[in-house]
């Protein structure tokens, strides 16, 4: 965890402000369960308001240097966006039955509109977020998104994914360097070697996991899908299978979390706002993996009721790992005039699980 404090720097006093999350699980539980009940009672209409309240709760409880963030999205716009997303989904569901060619057409269409979806989703989220009366913005272009999400991965495929860490870095650059606060840019930069080092460590971990997993999977293959009458796997077999599956799954997830945590530290930790406010990030792979694993187990055991506490716990940890080394008292920012936009892209992106972050 990073601590807040002041240090005397070269050109003036620098203050280290750690992000602080002040929400609590029990408070979010009430909001979540009322959201859920109202969403069911209104046959889904309320889900747009629920989304705004949830996002506001998390942004508004995140404090930096004593001031909260805020979220301003209009539920009506989200509702319209959601409605259009459902229409698209239905259109796909109805027409995909006609012939396989239609499915290919849809896939091509989605491939081409994905960059637009990503950009509008990030823009919607940033423009509706404010801190100290000043809005964030995302200024990435669609061609930029197409480059890092389609072109570079295809090129990486040609190199058998050996250049994948550079694709990862290009995406982080695209994400961080296109965000602005009050018109002032965030800039991050780090060496290719540092991201390769993360992936090579992960590869080493994966090989270790692979040996364990291989042994378990050979034992797992026997009860393939059993359609027949009569045959039933024994309780021990099922229990063993579940344990083996969960172990392998947890190990694989842990490696993914490791890459995520280390790469986030690189991207955020090397970011600078407006040339002189430095960001810091020290996410730990082990604490993060522990939180996610225990959250998952508890959410399961409580049939989902633990979810609000789980989410608060995760966000609180993540916030405690990010800090801003501010070169001033942050009074100098001014809001730019930004046109608001609809939530169509955001909602379609959410529906198809395209949400991106670091």
């Amino acid at each position, binding site marked *: 965890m990073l601590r807040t404090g002041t240090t005397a720097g070269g050109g003036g006093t620098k203050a280290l402000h750690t992000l602080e999350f*002040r*929400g609590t699980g029990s*408070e979010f*539980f*009430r*909001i979540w*369960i*009322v959201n859920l*009940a*109202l969403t*069911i*009672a209104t046959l889904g209409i309320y*889900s747009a308001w*629920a989304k705004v*309240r949830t996002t*506001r*709760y998390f942004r*508004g*409880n995140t404090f930096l240097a004593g*001031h*909260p963030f*805020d979220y301003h999205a209009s539920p009506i716009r989200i509702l319209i966006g959601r409605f259009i997303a459902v229409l698209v989904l239905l259109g796909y569901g109805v027409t995909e*039955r006609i012939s*396989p060619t239609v499915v290919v057409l849809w896939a091509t269409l989605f491939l081409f509109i994905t960059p637009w979806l990503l950009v509008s989703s990030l823009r919607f989220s940033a423009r509706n977020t404010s801190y*100290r*009366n*000043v809005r964030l913005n995302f200024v990435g272009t669609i061609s930029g998104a197409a480059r890092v999400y389609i072109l570079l991965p295809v090129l990486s495929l040609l190199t058998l994914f050996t250049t994948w860490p550079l694709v990862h870095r290009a995406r982080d650059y695209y994400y961080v360097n296109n965000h602005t606060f009050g018109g002032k840019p965030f800039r991050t930069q780090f060496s290719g070697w540092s991201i390769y080092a993360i992936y090579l460590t992960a590869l080493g971990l994966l090989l270790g996991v692979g040996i364990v997993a291989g042994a378990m999977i050979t034992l797992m293959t026997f*009860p*393939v*899908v*059993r*359609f*027949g*009458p*009569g*045959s*039933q*796997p*024994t*309780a021990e077999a*099922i229990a063993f299978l*579940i344990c083996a*599956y969960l172990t392998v*799954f947890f190990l694989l*997830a842990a490696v993914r979390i490791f890459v995520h945590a280390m790469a986030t530290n690189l991207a955020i930790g090397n970011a600078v706002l407006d040339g002189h406010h430095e960001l810091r990030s020290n996410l730990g792979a082990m604490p993060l993996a522990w939180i*996610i694993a225990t959250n*998952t187990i508890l*959410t*399961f055991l409580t049939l*989902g009721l633990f*979810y609000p506490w789980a989410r608060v716990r995760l966000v609180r940890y993540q916030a405690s790992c990010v800090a801003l080394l501010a070169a001033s*008292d*942050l*009074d*100098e*920012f*001014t*809001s730019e005039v930004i046109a608001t936009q609809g939530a169509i892209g955001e909602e379609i992106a959410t529906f198809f*699980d395209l*949400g991106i972050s670091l």
Partner: protein
Amino acid sequence: MKVSGTYFPSKSSRAIAAHAELSQDAVLTITAEDGAILTAVPFKDVRASSRLGKLYRCLDLPGGAHFETSDNDGVDAMFRAAGLLRRGAFIHRLESSLRWVAVAVLLATISATAIIVYGFPAAARWLAYETPRPVLAAISEQTLSTMDRLSLGPSRLTATERAKAKLLFDRVAAVAANGRNGYRLLFRNGNSLGPNAFSLPDGTIIVTDQLCRLVKRNDELEGVFGHELAHANRRHSLQMVYEDSLIPVAIALITGDASQFTQIASVLPAMLIQSSYSRGFELQADDDSVTMMRHIGADPSALGDLLLRMDKTLCGKDGCRPSWLGSHPATTERVARLRTLANSSR
């Protein structure tokens, strides 16, 4: 009426410690802590964010200035005094009242249970019957090749043995929904799966050599075919696939995000369900088998005899243990049921 907080001038991040005061003539005056008046605006032009938990309240002032305060009750009192409606006050009351939260828990739990118990199977059934034939064929081919690769081998039955089984198969298929030409029978070596039979949603039935050799009477094999044809007709395997894929969708909708939880959470139920057909599907297929046996004049309880013998081969002398988690009806229970049905048909 006075609340203290922070004032930000128009479009600026400059924080000024200040307090806001509502006068009798409904004017909101913001005064800095040093006494300087920062701004004064008609209260009706002030937009306040709705109350949510202990979140700081934001007052948006005309012209882009902004006042934030942690004094939620103070802001609410101002709105009450001015006789203006507070946005979202009703929702906040629900969230703050233990009684309404309890109602919400109850409502959410009941409807979630109803959706899982009745909604999912109904949706899966609808989707399964709506799935077009070419898709069925593709799914079935895929499943067959996976099974061939993982557990099944080429059949070692003689041509005579196969012809005999095919004859019985055609006899049952003739009384099934799609008629004699609507299905196909495949023979495979069951390897570690032993005596078993499988059905794919496109009407392909697979029997293992071990099952064919375990059969003592023709009626037994016909009973198995009836059972598997029923699974195929009712597209049971497809319904299971749809039910499994609906679970993550539902979790994403309930929790409002599709993050790592949902990916991990979708695995376990899928594992549990895939290990066997649900209880209802098995009993349904047994019932259909009995009907078909009656049509062709075979003994409906013969399937039960074969099930008992399969259990002995698969699980040892004493038969299999009672079903785990109740997902698969115990064989003895099914056999007893088949015998009762067979007797009642006479």
